[in-house]
């Protein structure tokens, strides 16, 4: 366990970035988009309320009320609150691991899902695994706080295979990023 510090993470990112990678183009473009794009809350509360997100049972979505924490191969596993696609856990991969031969996208869309065990909201990165044909197993389409193309980080229709050697979509993982 460590404290999640987005600023430190940004610095680390910059250091690595300065080291030079072939993904520089992607990162630079993404950065530009983020800087230019307006900021937005990650839970469906108005900006004024963002500092105190309501996590009472009454504020839980239908998905959150029925989510479980034990089976990562089911659509109602808690992290999958905004996933769209085949679960990599059903395709020979893991919750944050691509099946053999697939390539994790360096960028992803995100969701904020409530873990029923502690009642807290966490930020989940839905990282697509790319470069193989559609897996076809365990297709899920959950839409908590899922938005439209003008908020692409929160849209689950986009094939997030940017910067991979092939953009063919295989499956999606659900990586824990931190508290939301």
């Amino acid at each position, binding site marked *: 366990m460590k404290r999640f510090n987005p600023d430190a993470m940004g610095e680390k990112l910059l250091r690595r970035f300065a080291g030079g990678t072939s993904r520089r183009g992607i990162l630079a473009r*993404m950065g530009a988009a983020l800087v230019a794009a307006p900021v937005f809350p990650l839970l*469906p509360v108005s900006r004024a309320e963002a500092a105190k997100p309501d996590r009472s049972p009454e504020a839980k*979505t239908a998905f959150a009320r029925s989510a479980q924490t034990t089976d990562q191969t089911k659509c109602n596993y808690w992290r999958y609150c905004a996933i769209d696609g085949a679960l990599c856990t059903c395709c020979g991969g893991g919750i944050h691991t691509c099946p053999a031969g697939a390539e994790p996208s360096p960028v992803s869309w995100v969701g904020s899902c409530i873990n029923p065990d502690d009642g807290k909201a966490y930020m989940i990165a839905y990282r697509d695994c790319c*470069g193989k*044909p559609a897996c076809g197993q365990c297709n899920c389409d959950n*839409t908590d706080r*899922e938005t*439209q*193309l*003008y908020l692409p980080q929160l849209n689950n229709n986009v094939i997030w295979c940017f910067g991979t050697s092939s953009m063919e979509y295989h499956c999606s993982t659900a990586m824990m990023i931190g508290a939301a």
Partner: protein
Amino acid sequence: MTLERKVSRVVLGSMLAGSLAGLAPLPAIAETVVPEAEEPGVMTMEPPKANWFYVRGGWGSAGSSIFDASTGKMVGMVNTSRDSDLAIDPSGKFYYVAETIWSKVNRGTRQDLISVYDSKTLKLVSEIPTPGRLIVGGFTTNFVLTDDGKTAYDYNFDPASSVNIIDMVKRKFVRAVELPGCAGMILNPGVGFSSLCADGTIATVAIKGATQDITRTEPFFDAAADPIFSNTLYDRKKKQVVMVSYTGLVRTASVGAKVEVSAPFSLQEAGGMKAADVKPLDIAWYPGGMQPIALHRPSGTLWVLMHKGEYWSHKEGAEEIWGINLATRKLIKRIPVEGEPGNIQITQDDAALIMVNGYKGKALIIDSKTGEVKHEIENAGGGLITVVEPM
């Protein structure tokens, strides 16, 4: 090769099939009087018609089937490779397909292009390379043509937002415009285009030769809390866009150098119900689907796929289709519907026939005036539905 020469060669092929038979030593053959052997041919199409639906085959599909709304029969197919976008030339001469293909199908070199198909022969006539496009499919607003058909706007996200401008007369990419924080295009004749943005505004990109000015409306919606469906509807005659949000707020906006957004009204209130909101546990009728709204432009009627449920169910298929008179802001018709369709479209003629389909690929053609199901089409396709728009 001209079409005529191809046909004559095909006749030769027909002979070959005959010769296959001829080589088999069946005495019966030479002794029997038979109908004259038939010859193969190839159909030509009429130009795009107001009562045609163009239906995408769903995820991974490579074609858009064309169905005649009056008969329910398939009349042809446009090659639309996976996650491509189809646009119909306003003059009716061409179909344009913005697509992304790899040199080795699942690997190799990426090629982004607009493929040009002759609308009568459905043959590929040209390919226009572009610098890139968003590979998503399912959105009407990612590839649009101006009223005169001379310019195409092709949305790109890589993952930064921009719009490629293509000269469809010269069949040449012109330039890209950056569009940070916004996505998709709403036509804005004489100005350029407008877009929905993450800050709750509509941005307008006024194209001025090699430069552009970007202006924004005041914020009028919350892009995270109650987003507007990206598949907005544009009325070319009224120069007006119709937008619906997840809770069912309907807004129109007149485009121009300055975009004017109307005050919203609630779909539910239009039907005499309580407006829906974003809170969990509140059950209400909500709009839902990938292409949840259709606009019958001649009558100013908005048709919306509606389902009962809680908020954040905006992709759920429909139980009813609601017809809303945009002028009076009243619900004028509720049509129950089977199969949980996620896409809706309506012909822009007086017949006003609705098509809905769902991910299983079955389509229904429904008379919007009576609610009667006129045709059920198995395997029609589960994706986006396109119609010819009145100019």
